[in-house]
């Protein structure tokens, strides 16, 4: 039995492990032994970003966040985005290694390329199946965004 689900982004197989939960802003969340939830980018996000060049956090560890609060920014070869908190809670630590070399996100997104830990409630997070349903809904919009930035 497979331990992951696959979503086809065109020709690309985006894989999502079953051992964790997911946020709608394309981050995975996994409970840690210390009670925090560790977050990182999903294969969907990484595929959109491609090679990450620059990662910056605009808040310090230890800060209390509201859900979707702006916390930083990322820049890749092809795209840029502001980053937002996936859940409310206290951000306990960032993955310091990514600040000197953000390519860890591309190399090992589901493990060493994690982003940060938050002490908070996982109740709003989705199961892998639910996240895939969410992707089916947003894939069309994602493609439009990439092709035309919504024709702005």
């Amino acid at each position, binding site marked *: 039995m497979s331990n992951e689900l696959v979503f086809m982004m065109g020709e690309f197989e985006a894989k999502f492990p079953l051992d964790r939960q997911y946020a709608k*802003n394309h981050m995975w969340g996994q409970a840690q032994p210390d009670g925090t939830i560790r977050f990182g980018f999903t294969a969907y996000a990484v595929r959109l970003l491609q090679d990450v060049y620059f990662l910056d956090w605009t808040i310090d560890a230890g800060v209390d966040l509201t859900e979707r609060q702006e916390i930083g920014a990322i820049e890749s070869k092809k795209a*840029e985005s502001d980053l937002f908190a996936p859940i409310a809670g206290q951000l306990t630590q960032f993955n310091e290694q990514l600040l000197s070399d953000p390519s860890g996100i591309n190399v090992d997104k589901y493990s060493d390329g994690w982003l940060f830990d938050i002490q908070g409630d996982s109740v709003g997070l989705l199961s892998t199946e639910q996240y895939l349903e969410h992707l089916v809904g947003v894939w069309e919009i994602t493609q439009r965004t*990439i092709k035309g930035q919504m024709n702005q």
Partner: protein
Amino acid sequence: MNSRILTIISRGQSENPVKRQLESDLGDALEKIDGSRTLIIPNLYDLPIGGDVVQAIRAWDGPIVVYAWLFERAARWVLDRNGISGHEGEVLLKSEDDDEDEVTNEDDEEEKERVLAARELPKRRIYCVNLRDAQSVEPFAEEFQRIAQVSSEDELHAWIDRDVPLHQMQRFLQPTNDTALNTNAEAANVQVPVLKFDESPGRRWYPVIDFSRCTNCMECIDFCLFGVYGVDTIDTILVEQPDNCRKGCPACSRVCPENAIIFPQHKTPAIAGADVEVGGLKIDLSRLFGAPDEDATKVAARERDEQLVMAGRDAVGLSVGIPKRQADKPVEPKDDLDNLIDGLDDLDL
């Protein structure tokens, strides 16, 4: 004939040594080209109106080539605001990223009356080259040579009354027989030294209006609560008190329906005067990654409130100077685009 062109190198605000080197190398390179006359000046945008540098440039009525760390539109309209205007000269040097996916929607453009259409411009052309578009001096120097060529043809056309047979014009430009006047060689003997203005004006921050887009709708004057905008004697909008502008605040450019207001030093290229919104720039995935759904008007109102509070005044939110553009629009059946946009709202991204 190149001596008929004034070349201006506008230095950047940044002390980045790479940029400084490019500026001075370009000055050296241009000095060697035929008798071109070159000025190196502080950042064009920071120059005080009516200052020495501006006066010097205003005294020139021939074609101008401007090299600046500014988008072409920004440079052109900063000059215009300083009373230095002319027709837009076409610059072919573009950054490499620029040419992918360049989408021009000119066909879709509604016919609107632009302020520029009612103005009479001096016959000369002004060519604005963005110094970010190449990394070395050579492409910039080559572009100058090309412009000089185009410019001398222009001049010839204006001089001889149209209808010049092509071969005749070519012979004039590149004489082949020894008895002809060799204008190029003659000019080459005259090297005009680069004139450098070293004054360093303080950094400024103010909007610049692109009158080829502006429709004189007055939304900016209604929106800005710091008295930056005014009107001239024939009721055309102008940036009357540029130094009343609040540093860092680009809010009026966000409410401008024609994208005609430029803040040349803003980090967002579309606000800094980039021609195309997306061309060559990175895709912004923020909406997909959870950015709050805040439209340009709300951002503008928020930015304005921040400035009002900093200036010790009360925030006004959306209550002052926000146009209700759609208010009197008749209800029409939704088209595909409406449906698409409605779909986006429903989508809880």
